[in-house]
């Protein structure tokens, strides 16, 4: 099916199992250790690898002495650029060549790979590899290299610039103007499971058990890199311990393991250490964002401008699209967005949960708060006054948009009317209290996905696709969809994911996972239902499926009597013209209350609520978990998360989880998320929209706005740590 028209009424519209807060079907496996992750896979005669990272940011390997490592106990191979094979090249989404030569282009670049009989032997030997470098001067800090920033030209992302009307004149002439610059820091995904791979060759066929969010994409990247046919590569990844974009692309673990395994003719496994992940894999670029908002005296936007700088390796075109949501969120006749990319000699910057919106809204939604104060308007009212009737840049309708109901319902539930717009008016002991809000929006992409569904005579339904579940609940929603469509209890549905030998799927990323994979399965189930109806001699248009039977009129047949030795069907979903003819986003509103310690400047979240609309909610429980997980991510982004760059070395100094701070349980009090009813019939057959990233979008801004409301100090440089607040707090002398 291609999404070229609205989907009409369908089987999911009747009340059923889809949408119910079903517990995760893979939950018992996860809590009993039955769910095995890449590094837990085991094979006979497996060897273990350990990466040696470059300890300079830019330069050249002068010499590399591997003799001591090679002689160390248990060592089978030390790979360096001298004995690594030639590999295919491309940007980080196309290829991931390793050990390609003596050039060091970034800190932490793998310069050797030590393989030994045990992990401990490999690690110990890795420390014996003696690398000497000729260091050259690198460009590391974004702020210091803005003069070299260029217009990025990625092939698979929106154009860097957009313009409508005459921004410059309109802004200059606007009665009320706001011109502010926000900065967001370098961030690391910090998912729980480290990047890991077990590689094994059987002749010229390669199998990789690997933690990867998009297996079909990964298969292509491995093929390009190793210069072998994609069909000779199988990626297996049934369980992934979080990714947040850090496992969207192939990383060094997979390629190093594959190369070493081929040379040694033995399986090789590797897990990056926590410390290595920060440099060896990708991160989110820092950004410098200038927001210019010009309005009339009533707060209607006349001009909106958003300029964004981010950085990446000179060989990459991926930019942090922090102004992308500014093209569509609010009305206004004169608009300008620009992204510039500075070439930097640091590790690859790439997607991290809600690339673009996550940090873009931390600027835009705080600027809106600042603007509301300037206009003496309630922040929600300001947003309502700028609600667009159509997408203001594409001039196409929204497929569905209920931002205003989200804000109003959230305001009602959170007690927004008790907010004093004047900062610093409420206290609890030494804690200054404040509340803030922000809008949430995230694009709703749909990607090609295929699914196979099979019904066996024992009544078991098996779903297969090369989809992944990165902890989001994909197994569960797919089981619900198949159960609903075929009239089976979910216990009879077995969902098998994470294997490229299954039908191609979108994978998990960009909030497209549930919609794309679920729609492919929906189509496969439809096809199977038709086959079943045909076999039963019934009209598929009137046949209903329930309790393991198909019924039409007075007639009813058990499905197990119809499937013979087993009956299967395939389904497919493709994006179509709906994506171009309708502006598709999920929406929401965040409300946060924080306390700011007036003595120390410590900020602690007290409560938080997100109200969202994202089309049909497929599972109320996993959707809520996704949303509050995203909100917790936003707490970290607002208050804690930042990789500290040491510009002398190109090094991310705080490269472990003790010093790279993400929220801990104690930082996350009662937070809640609710979804308002919505169906989007232009989105996909499920009428759902993406939720995986919606929770983070705007979350950080609501906290920043609450901090301002609490203490009257506006910090435009994230994260809002106490050292930045201190000088603005009242003096205690």
């Amino acid at each position, binding site marked *: 099916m291609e999404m070229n028209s609205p989907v009409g009424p369908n089987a999911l519209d009747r009340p059923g199992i889809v949408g119910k807060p079903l517990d995760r079907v893979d939950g018992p496996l996860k809590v009993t250790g039955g769910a095995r992750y890449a590094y837990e896979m085991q094979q006979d005669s497996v060897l273990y690898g350990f990466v040696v990272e470059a300890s300079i940011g830019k330069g050249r390997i002068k010499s590399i002495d591997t003799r001591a490592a090679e002689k160390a106990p248990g060592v089978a191979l030390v790979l360096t650029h001298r004995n690594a094979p030639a590999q295919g090249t491309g940007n980080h989404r196309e290829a991931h060549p390793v050990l390609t030569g003596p050039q060091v282009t970034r800190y932490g670049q793998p310069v050797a790979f030590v393989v030994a009989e045990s992990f401990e032997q490999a690690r110990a030997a890795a420390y014996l590899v003696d690398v000497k470098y000729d260091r050259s001067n690198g460009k590391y800090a974004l702020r210091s290299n803005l003069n070299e920033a260029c217009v990025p030209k990625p092939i698979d992302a929106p154009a860097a610039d957009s313009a409508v009307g005459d921004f410059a004149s309109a802004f200059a002439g606007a009665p009320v103007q706001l011109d502010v610059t926000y900065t967001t820091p370098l961030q690391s995904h910090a998912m729980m499971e480290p990047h890991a791979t077990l590689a094994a060759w059987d002749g010229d066929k390669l199998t990789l058990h690997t933690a990867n969010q998009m297996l079909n994409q990964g298969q292509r990247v491995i093929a390009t890199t190793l210069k072998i046919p994609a069909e000779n590569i199988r990626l297996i990844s049934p369980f992934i311990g979080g990714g947040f974009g850090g496992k969207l692309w192939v990383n060094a673990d997979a390629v190093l393991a594959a190369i070493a395994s081929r040379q040694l003719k033995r399986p090789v496994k590797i897990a990056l250490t926590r410390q290595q992940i920060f440099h060896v894999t990708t991160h989110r670029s820092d950004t410098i964002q200038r927001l210019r908002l010009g309005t009339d005296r009533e707060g209607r936007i006349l001009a909106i401008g958003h300029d964004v700088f981010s950085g990446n390796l000179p060989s990459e075109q991926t930019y942090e699209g922090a102004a992308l949501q500014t093209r569509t969120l609010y009305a206004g006749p004169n608009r300008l967005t620009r992204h510039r990319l500075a070439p930097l000699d640091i590790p690859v910057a790439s997607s991290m949960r809600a690339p673009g919106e996550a940090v873009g809204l931390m600027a835009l939604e705080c600027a809106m708060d600042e603007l509301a104060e300037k206009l003496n308007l309630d922040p929600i009212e300001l947003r309502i006054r700028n609600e667009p009737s159509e997408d203001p840049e594409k001039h196409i309708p929204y497929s569905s948009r209920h931002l205003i109901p989200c804000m109003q319902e959230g305001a009602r539930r959170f007690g927004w009317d008790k907010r004093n717009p004047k900062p610093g008016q409420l206290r609890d002991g030494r804690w200054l209290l404040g509340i803030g809000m922000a809008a949430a929006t995230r694009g709703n992409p749909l990607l090609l996905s295929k699914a196979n569904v099979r019904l066996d005579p024992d009544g078991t339904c098996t779903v297969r696709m090369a989809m992944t579940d990165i902890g989001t609940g994909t197994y569960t929603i797919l089981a619900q969809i198949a159960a609903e469509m075929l009239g089976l209890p979910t216990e009879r549905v077995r969902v098998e994911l994470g294997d490229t030998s299954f039908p191609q799927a979108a994978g998990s990323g960009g909030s497209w996972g549930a919609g794309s994979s679920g729609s492919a399965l929906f189509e496969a189930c439809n096809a199977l239902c038709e086959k079943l109806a045909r076999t039963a001699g019934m009209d598929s248009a009137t046949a209903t499926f329930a309790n393991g039977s198909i019924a039409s009129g007075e007639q009813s047949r058990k499905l197990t009597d119809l499937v013979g030795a087993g009956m299967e069907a395939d389904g497919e979903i493709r994006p179509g013209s709906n994506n171009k003819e309708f502006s598709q986003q999920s929406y929401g509103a965040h409300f946060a209350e924080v306390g700011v310690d007036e003595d120390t400047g410590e900020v602690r979240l007290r409560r938080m609520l997100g109200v969202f609309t994202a089309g049909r909610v497929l599972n109320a429980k996993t959707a809520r978990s996704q949303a509050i997980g995203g909100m917790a991510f936003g707490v970290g982004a607002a208050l804690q998360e930042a990789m500290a760059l040491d510009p002398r070395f190109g090094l991310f100094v705080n490269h472990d989880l003790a010093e790279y701070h993400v929220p801990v349980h104690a930082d996350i009090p009662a937070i809640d998320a609710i979804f308002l009813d919505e169906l989007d019939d232009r989105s996909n057959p499920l009428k759902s929209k993406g939720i995986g990233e919606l929770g983070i979008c705007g979350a950080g801004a609501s906290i920043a706005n609450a901090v301002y409301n609490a203490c009257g100090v506006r910090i435009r440089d994230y994260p809002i740590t*106490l050292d930045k607040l201190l000088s603005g707090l009242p003096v205690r002398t």
Partner: protein
Amino acid sequence: MKAFTYQRTDSTAQAAAAAVQPGAKIIAGGTNLLDLMKLQVETPSNLVDINRLPLDKTEETPDGGLRIGALVRNSDLAADPRVRQRYGVLSRALLAGASAQLRNKATTGGNLLQRTRCYYFYDITKPCNKRNPGSGCAALAGFNRIHAILGASEHCIATHPSDMAVAMRALDAKVETVNRHGETKVIPIAEFYRLPGDTPEIETSLKPGEIITAVTLPPPPPGVQVYRKVRDRASYAFALVSVAAIVDSTRGRIRSARLAFGGLAHRPWRVAQAEQRLVNAAANTTTLNSAADAVLEGARGFGGNDFKVPLTRRTLHSVLAETTRT
């Protein structure tokens, strides 16, 4: 991690004899040592496991204090009713440290001897005089948000990360040790830690092979006990500044005060003059400023940690306001 031998010991004398050998390292909870070994910051050739030694009891002392065995786990010590009732500052400091899992494993002696969390100390490819004497200090002109503002030297600006030790400093704890000859020693905690000077690799006054057997607390001093830890998140973060305060006051007049600070220096920081300025003083702004001036005498930031100077002052004000409220 380099290959090493492992030796379990049954007596302190045996442990001390093993620990004095070159390359030997004592392991108790291992919560810090194992991390350092994985990164090859520590490369012992022999690990001497003292977990079986009978040092895991907390006992009353004749003078009304407590004697805490070196192997008493942080969780157990924090939960000990005698500690909770009489040494609240210690219980709170312990619970402010690390995570529940780490506290279950970490020991009293090990906590005292944990190493700094300076990022550059943990990265063997970077200069660090503490790890590799003479190589330089990468933190001095580097990212030094968590570093010392007091007692630092041009060779090292690391801080001691313990919360427990800060409370013990305020309580005037004493560290009991034994060496391989069975000779015991009692070291006041004020003399236990050294400033970095030009030998930042030497952090305590312990001699090679000298083993901590216990920490004794004198009877609790009068007053309200508070441990305030200022940090970047609500748990599992080291102190930017912490204050262990024991303040005896009535109706806004301070009789006596003890103030020990964490996060500021290579050792828990305590300034006698600051405390003297509070004796028999009204808890007003002038007094508190004067005390803060004494604490911060000679304070110096290195860029990223400049904020610790005003933060210390503000935190001190806050803690004294809290402890003298009634």
